C-alpha cells in the first residue's frame, strides 16, 4: 500500500487548476487550496476526473464560521496515488450562503452537506435532499454559527 506521508503538492495542483479553469484559485498554501465558490464544481470535477490526480474519495466536508465569512472545507483523497488535499471555498454572503453541491461527483457528500446545512446554515445548490439531518424541521437557527449563543 502506498503511503501518504508526503502532503499533496499544492503548488503543482494549483498550477494545473489555473491552467484548466483560469481564475479559479483564490489562495494557496502548503496545506490547502482555496477556490472561488463559483468555480468549486468545475475544480472538483478536474480533481476527480484527471487521471494523474484521481481524487476519487471525498473524505470529509465541513464548514467554519469566521464571523465575517464562512469557509467550506473539503478533504479529498486519492486512494490510488495516496494524496490528501484540503480544498476550501470561501462564502461571503451571511444572509443566504449558497455553494454548489458536490453530490453529483461524490455521493458521500450527500449526508455531510446536509449536516453543514443543518448546523451551519449553508445551502447547497442542486442537492437532492436539502433537509436538516440532526435537528427537527421546526428548529430555528444554526447552532454552529458563532452568533448562536449557548444558554
Amino acid at each position, binding site marked *: *500500500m*502506498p*503511503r*501518504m*506521508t508526503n502532503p499533496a503538492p499544492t503548488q503543482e495542483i494549483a498550477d494545473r487548476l489555473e491552467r484548466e479553469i483560469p481564475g479559479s484559485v483564490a489562495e494557496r498554501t502548503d*496545506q490547502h487550496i482555496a477556490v472561488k465558490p463559483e468555480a468549486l464544481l468545475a475544480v472538483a470535477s478536474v480533481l476527480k476526473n484527471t487521471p494523474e490526480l484521481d481524487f*476519487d*474519495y*471525498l*473524505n*470529509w466536508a*465541513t464548514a*467554519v*464560521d469566521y464571523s465575517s465569512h464562512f469557509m467550506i*472545507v473539503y*478533504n479529498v483523497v486519492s*486512494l490510488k496515488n*495516496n494524496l*490528501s488535499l*484540503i480544498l476550501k471555498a470561501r462564502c461571503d454572503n451571511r444572509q443566504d450562503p449558497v455553494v454548489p453541491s458536490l453530490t453529483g461527483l*461524490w*455521493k*458521500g*457528500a*450527500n*449526508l*455531510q452537506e446536509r*449536516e453543514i446545512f443543518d*448546523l451551519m446554515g449553508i445551502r447547497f445548490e442542486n442537492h437532492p435532499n436539502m433537509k*436538516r*439531518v*440532526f*435537528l*427537527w424541521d421546526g428548529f430555528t437557527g444554526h*447552532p*454552529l454559527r458563532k452568533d*448562536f449563543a*449557548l444558554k
Partner: protein
Amino acid sequence: MTSYEAMYQTEPFLLNAGPHHPSTHGVFRMRLTLDGEVIQDVEPIFGYLHRGVEKLAETLNYTQAIVLTDRMDYLASMSNNQAYVLSVEKLAGIKVPERAEYIRVIMAELMRIASHLMAVGFLLNDMGAFMTPVLYMFREREKIVDLFEMVCGQRLTYNYMRIGGLSHDLPEEFIPALQKLVDTMPRIIDEYDELLAENEILLARARNVGILTRESAINNSVAGPVLRGSGVKWDIRKADPYSVYDRFTFDVPIGSVGDVYDRYRVRIQEMRESTGIIQQAIKALPAQGEIQAAVSKNLRPPVGEVYGHVEGPKGELGFYLVSDNSLHPYRLHVRAPSFINLGALRELLIGVKIADASVIFGSIDICMGEVDR
C-alpha cells in the same frame, strides 16, 4: 368496481422501523416504502442522540474536550481519545513519550477487538441467532473491559489518554493479565469462526446479500471494514502511519465481493491482526520511562488548523481542529465513520427484501452516539 385490476389495486406500504427497535442498535429510524416485501425506498432518520458535541467543544478547553470524545462512539472510547489527543498534539507540536505511544497502541487494538466482537455478535443477533453468540462475545469483551478498568478505573468512558500522554501508568498486574488474554485470543477467535463461518444459515443470510461494489464504496466515502470488505486495501495505520504503527508487521485483510459475509470476515481477521500487534507491542514496550510529556494546563495552540486521524474500529476517525490561540478550540469537526458509512445505506437497501434490511444495516456497524454526536 368492475375490473379485477381495480379490485386488487395495490399501493406502496410505508413502514417506520424504529426509533426503538432491537435491530436498529440505538435510536435510529428507517422510513421504508415497501412493495410487498421489497424495499422501494428508504429514508434514514436520526438525530435523537444529538448533543451538539462540536458546539460544546468550543466552550471547553482542549483537555476538557476529551470527555466529549468518550461519549461519541461509546463502544470505542479509547480510539476516540486517541484520535482527538493526536490531533491536538499535531496542532500544538507536542512529542509523546515512547512508552505512552506503545500503551496507546495496546489500548487502541484492544478497543478494536472489543468493538469488532460487538459488531459480529450483534450481526448474528440480527440474523436470528438470538443472544447466544452475542453473550459469548460479551464474555471476551468483559475481559478487555476489565483491563481498561485496571488502568483507568472506568469500564465505558475511559478518558484515559491525555494531551501529550496518558492519565495513569500501567499497574503492575496489567501486563501479565494482558499477556494471558492475548495468548488465548487466537484460539477463541478460531472457535467463534468455526462455529459461525461454516454455519449454513449464516452463509445463506450473508453471502451475496447487501453487495457494495468497490466503486460504490469509494464514491460513498465509506471507511473501515465496510470499505475493506468491498476490496479496497485502505487502512490509515498503513496509509498514514501515526503513533508507532510503522514498527509493527500486520496485514490488512480485504474482501472480494463486498457482501455482508465479507464485512463479517474482515472483522474476524482484523481481530487476529490486532492480537498480533498487541503481542509485538508487549515485547517492544519500554520497561521504564515517562508516560506524559510536559504540557501546559492552559494549552494555547498556535493559530492554525490541523486534521488528525486514526483507523478506528468503524473506520477512519478524524478531528479537524481550528485554533485561534485561545484556550478553546475555535472549531472542532469530527469525521465520524458511523455517520459517513450510513450514507451507503440507501443504495444497499433499495431493491432488497425487508428481512435482509436489518442484517445489512447490522453489517455496517454503526454507533448512534457517533452518528448523532
